[in-house]
């Protein structure tokens, strides 16, 4: 079967520095794929290339939604990428702090709705209807994510773990095919992490594909169907969690080499 996301030869140069070096990666429909690697390996750069914040130097980013044409995502603006069905969260939380929880999620519906200025002024039936649907859908997402009771709170007043979850809720509101999570468990306590584990599995079971960057190895190993390992902008290994755990290249990248062997 054609993978949902197929990336070939992705390269990103910043001046003379090659942050990503001919990276190949693919995500199958309905799977949880993890991208791991030491700090500075280029994981977040990869996410930024994928979501249109950076324009990759070369390579192909191909998205094939099930039963539809393949489209190329290179060089599209971030909002167009989101329209194609890729939604992301950020490593350092980027919510809209002075908007309510509900509004944060409603923003996610923006690219799936149509109301224009005149619609907003005259509030015709179509606009009212659309607005109702946005609220209803956003609430149902909040319910699923477990933030329903806090919908009137400002996003900035939420506890840290809840803010992370809200970011996921906001991304879900864009109706994505592929959810990109950039270190979703960073700074969470063990209990919050295990809740996150359940949440991500539940999202996968709803039929979404997930690509996540994560440092919490316990979470990665228990969640992922497939793992890619990066170091210095290159892919050094891929496979299921078990094979990655025993891969000498990966151990070398994380723990360093024994001087005697070199």
């Amino acid at each position, binding site marked *: 079967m054609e993978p949902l996301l197929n990336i070939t030869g992705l390269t990103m140069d910043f001046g003379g520095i090659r942050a990503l070096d001919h990276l190949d990666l693919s995500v199958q429909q309905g799977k949880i794929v993890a991208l791991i690697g030491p700090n500075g390996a280029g994981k977040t750069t990869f996410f930024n290339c994928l979501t249109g914040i950076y324009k990759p130097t070369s390579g192909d980013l191909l998205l094939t939604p099930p039963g539809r044409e393949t489209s190329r995502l290179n060089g599209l603006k971030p909002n167009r990428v989101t329209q194609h069905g890729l939604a992301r969260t950020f490593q350092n939380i980027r919510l*809209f702090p002075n908007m309510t929880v509900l509004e944060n999620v409603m923003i996610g519906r923006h690219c799936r709705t149509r109301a224009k200025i005149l619609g907003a002024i005259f509030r015709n039936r179509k606009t009212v209807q659309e607005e109702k649907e946005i609220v209803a859908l956003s609430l149902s997402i909040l319910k699923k994510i477990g933030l329903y009771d806090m919908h009137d709170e400002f996003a900035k007043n939420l506890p840290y773990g809840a803010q992370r979850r809200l970011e996921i809720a906001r991304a879900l509101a864009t109706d994505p095919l592929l959810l990109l999570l950039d270190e979703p468990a960073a700074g969470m306590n063990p209990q919050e992490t295990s809740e996150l584990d359940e949440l991500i599995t539940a999202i996968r079971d709803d039929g979404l594909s997930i690509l996540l960057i994560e440092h919490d190895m316990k979470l990665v190993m228990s969640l992922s169907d497939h793992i890619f390992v990066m170091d210095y902008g290159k892919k050094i290994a891929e496979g299921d969690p078990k094979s990655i755990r025993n891969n000498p290249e990966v151990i070398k990248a994380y723990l360093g080499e024994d001087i005697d062997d070199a």
Partner: protein
Amino acid sequence: MISLKDIQKGLLVSLWFVFLTFPLLVIKVNPIERVITWRWYNMLWIALASFCCYLGVRVYKSRQLTRHKRVKLGIVKERAAWSVRILKEPSVYIPFLLVVGLFALVFPWIFSTYQTNIMVTALMYIVLGLGLNIVVGVAGLLDLGYVAFYAVGAYSYALLNMHFGLGFWMVLPIGGLLAASLGILLGFPVLRLRGDYLAIVTLGFGEIIRLILENWNDFSQGPSGISNIPRPGLFGLHLSLDQSITYLYYLVIAMVLFTIFVVNRLQNSRIGRAWFALREDEIACQAMGIDKTRTKLTAFALGAFWAGMVGVIFAAKTTFVNPASFTFLESAIILCIVVLGGMGSIIGVILAALILILMPEYLRAFSDYRMLVFGAVLVTMMIFRPQGLIANVRRTYNIPKV
């Protein structure tokens, strides 16, 4: 409530103010007779006033603190701030609105033409403030050249009337549209800039428009301006000066209501949400599928649209336009209205416009100290209420608890 330490600090504060105001209020030089008058009594007043002000603030703060403690202990219930209550509780805002509405309706009949004229100006600034509020308050784009769009509106009425004889009602939408299209035109190259950079460029743009109007004589008649602009007509009736000002008053009232209606609806719509999100975090906003450029352009164009329409009204009111009416100071005052009132808050902007425009008119006796007071008010505001007179309240949706 007041400790010895407070009094000590109060004395220090008054000493500081005496020092600050000394050259301005105590020394008076008469260069003709070559004498210096030392007005020591002024120093005394300043010291006394600042000391009392300081103690007043201390007392207020300590009372707030005790109240806060008692709320925490559960002795008294927390009461929402009056600004929130005005907007939220029907028992407060319905009578409030009725009184304000009635007052606005009868205003020109109880007060003189002069008063009405001042009120028309204040109302025009309300509309300008609400227009700029879309750009600065809601979408978070710091625009220091807003007056350029105001000028475009005013000159489009003056010129279209002079050359083609177009009437007020015809030009009102045209002026708005011209300003809006200029907003879009300016927007395209400029909107990739953020914050301070955007502010500088818009500031430059405002000056460019003013300089063009001042120097392109064939087009705008230069600094001498354009006179004999007709006042708005009422079905071809002939109106006396008093009548036409009353008519203009109601016209501007209608304009204010129209603006409030539209701005309110825009803020609570899909587009309004996108503006707020853009102000909060641009990158996250794009990642959520919002087209940054288009959203910014709509904010810019809509803000300019209102400035253009008020410009047309301004030209009709004064029957004369020249570039001197569109200086940077004008932009600064409109910006002050928005910041003082509270970013994104409609009621706040209205209140601030009334205060900032009416106060100088009614306090003509103190006109020497106008800028001094103006600065002091702004500084005090930023220290004690940085969110503005009436902070913006985000809309909540009626949703059942589960």
